[in-house]
């Protein structure tokens, strides 16, 4: 399995901090989610990181076994 991670307010939208998903193209993984959640995850201000590295573009990304894809809303630290 692969893993989706939801940070900040996205955790509330998803109802959990993370979710196990079947490996495969990210588009396909997102299409299998609740539409309301998928819309939030694809929001303009949400950044994505694959295994801890920021992605500039999610197009063409395929999640492999053990991959972790994190959805990162705007930060508000300190």
């Amino acid at each position, binding site marked *: 399995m692969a893993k989706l991670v939801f*940070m900040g307010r996205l955790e509330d939208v998803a109802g959990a901090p993370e979710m196990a998903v079947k490996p495969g193209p990210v588009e396909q993984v997102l299409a299998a989610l609740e539409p309301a959640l998928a819309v939030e995850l694809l929001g303009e201000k949400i950044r994505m*990181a694959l*295994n*801890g590295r920021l992605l500039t573009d999610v197009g063409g990304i395929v999640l492999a076994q053990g991959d972790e894809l994190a959805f990162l809303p705007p*930060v*508000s*630290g*300190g």
Partner: protein
Amino acid sequence: MADVRLSLDAFDPAVEIAGFNARHPNAGGIVTFLGQVRDSGGVEALELQHYEPMTLPGMQELARVTERRWPLEGLLILHRSGVMLPGDAIVLVCAAARHRRDAFAAADFAMDHLKSESWFWKREKTAAGWRWIEPRPEDHEDISRWRI
């Protein structure tokens, strides 16, 4: 050289500052910034969430950038994650330098970047429950001062 830590438990800033100063007894100037949970606005608790694979590495990179930009004799960046109460320390930055202005600028720079570019998500608990905090426009104005 920099001491960069992400703390999941409460830390005592006075102990950390004393330790830092003791490690840099001959630096001309030491600037420290301590950020604490404010006791105001009915905030009962504050939670900072971090993302393990990115938060500490991002802080370490910030320390490297800060050390490249100013000639420092020492730098400490220590940030809490987890649930905090009013009065709890959130973040401590200490910068030691031969010259005063370098220490001030480095601590100020590190704080601006911790506030607006480090991987933390914040929520506050009031009587109305928990609420996620969006970044403030000032945070981005603060950081834009450093673009050269």
